[in-house]
């Protein structure tokens, strides 16, 4: 199982910044970096303390992959509510209001509730989870999330026997989120999980990363993280969680039914018409690496899909 680390052990910023130096050295030794030297030179001006490689080495995911840089995680995002560009959401979401923020949790439950963002932080122990995040566009990151298992909320609201799926909805507010004026997509953003997927220990609601509160472009103030599924399943800036009987239709299922299915499990054997699902680029590295089944979480989650044809249930 994934290692759970208390918030107190989260790396000070100075240490993860030092990793950039390490990367720079690594990159300068590859031929491709001669042309694409961006990762190497980006922070050459920033003063960083001597690399603390020993402490650094401990900040990896369960497969010993180093963390993706904070600047990359917060500077390269898919958040179509702001823009279809990867770098624009950072600027466009600067003034995004995340307080007050209420999340309604209802549907087929015994105890519907509405929680304030502070309630989430005070009611549930915030843990660090270092997960790989694999975007459907064939790039990936290793992200130290702060959050808590979704199951803890479900235990409080108590889904009834009618609850088979869970449906999430992002804030709809075109004044704050200009991308929601783009008529190409059926807003608001909706995602869903099967109840057993939602109850799985790897599934978390995240309120932060790298020891800090989430930035708006990363889905502040609260988002879902499901590490064995493509990134778009991990819905951002959630305002409504509803326990439902029927399989919810996500925004991407509605926008491109032949391309995006409900499950969207990371699967190198099921191809996508645009991006290779067999390989991926880890952000911060130049080459490509093989994509792993269930994003490397097979041991934890494969049993959820026993007997299912994953080619059909993509």
């Amino acid at each position, binding site marked *: 199982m994934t290692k759970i680390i208390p918030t107190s052990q989260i790396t000070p910023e100075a240490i993860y910044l030092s990793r950039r130096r390490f990367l720079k050295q690594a990159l300068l030794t590859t031929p491709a970096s001669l042309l694409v030297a*961006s990762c190497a030179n*980006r922070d050459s001006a920033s003063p960083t303390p001597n690399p603390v490689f020993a402490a650094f080495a401990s900040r990896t995911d369960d497969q010993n992959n180093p963390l993706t840089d904070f600047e990359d995680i917060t500077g*390269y995002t898919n958040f179509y509510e702001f823009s279809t560009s990867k770098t624009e959401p950072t600027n466009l979401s600067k003034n995004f209001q995340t307080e007050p923020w209420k999340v309604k949790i209802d549907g087929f439950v015994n105890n519907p509730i509405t929680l304030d963002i502070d309630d989430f932080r005070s009611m549930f122990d915030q843990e660090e989870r270092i997960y790989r995040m694999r975007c459907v566009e064939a790039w990936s990151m290793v992200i130290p999330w702060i959050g808590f298992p979704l199951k803890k909320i479900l235990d409080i609201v108590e889904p009834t026997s009618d609850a088979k799926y869970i449906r999430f909805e992002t804030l709809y507010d075109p004044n704050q989120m200009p991308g929601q004026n783009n008529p190409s997509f059926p807003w608001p953003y909706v995602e869903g999980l099967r109840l057993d997927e939602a109850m799985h220990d790897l599934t978390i609601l995240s309120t932060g990363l790298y020891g800090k509160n989430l930035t708006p472009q990363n889905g502040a103030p609260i988002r879902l993280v499901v590490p064995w599924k493509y990134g778009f399943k991990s819905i951002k800036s959630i305002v409504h969680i509803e326990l439902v009987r029927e399989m919810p239709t996500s925004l991407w299922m509605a926008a491109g039914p032949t391309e995006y299915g409900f499950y969207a499990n990371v699967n190198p054997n099921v191809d996508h018409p645009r991006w290779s699902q067999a390989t991926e680029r880890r952000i911060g590295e130049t080459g490509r690496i093989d994509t792993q089944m269930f994003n490397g979480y097979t041991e934890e989650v494969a049993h959820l899909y026993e007997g299912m044809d994953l080619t059909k249930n993509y």
Partner: protein
Amino acid sequence: MKITKIQILGNLIGVIPAIYLMYQSISGKLSANPIQTATVITGRTSIYAILFSLYCTPLAQIFKLSVFHRIRKISGLFGFYYAFAHFLMFTLFDYQLNLSWILPEIQQKPFLQIGLIALVALIPLAISSIDIFKRKMGKSWKKLHYAVYLITALTLLHVALASKGDLIDPAILITLYLIAMLFRFPKLRSLRINKLPEWLARINTYLLS
């Protein structure tokens, strides 16, 4: 042969995206995913250049600005250069010439096949743009270069299929293409303005010198 100002200007404008790309790359401003971003930028530049080349003849004829005749070839050639750079970004930098990765990709993805066909089809056009060939080929040169209408359509199909759900961007490019094509029909093709403003005429003459 004398090198005109418009040729110098055209070539300068043509290398701006390449210089921008190199500068951004070296200073680390090409996003967290520089290879992907560079692939997109080279591809887009190619499309803009090819679309612009389709507007050259109508602009030259309607406004009697012969300078656009002179820049058409440069613009088309840059369209080809950037398409080729786009191809290199994909094969060399992204997939590191690993055929066991690249070949299945091309096999599985129609948008890659279409893009590849468009690129290969541009090669004879680029080669025959050399003046000697153009003179030797006579009428068949024109016929060959009509192919650019189809190649542009293929390129736009490549873009539309590669777009992730966003319909606006491909729609804008396709509209620009269709407008350019409208000017191939006799009625619009024969449009002429009566008199060219003096200052425009002067710029035209200046750039051709």
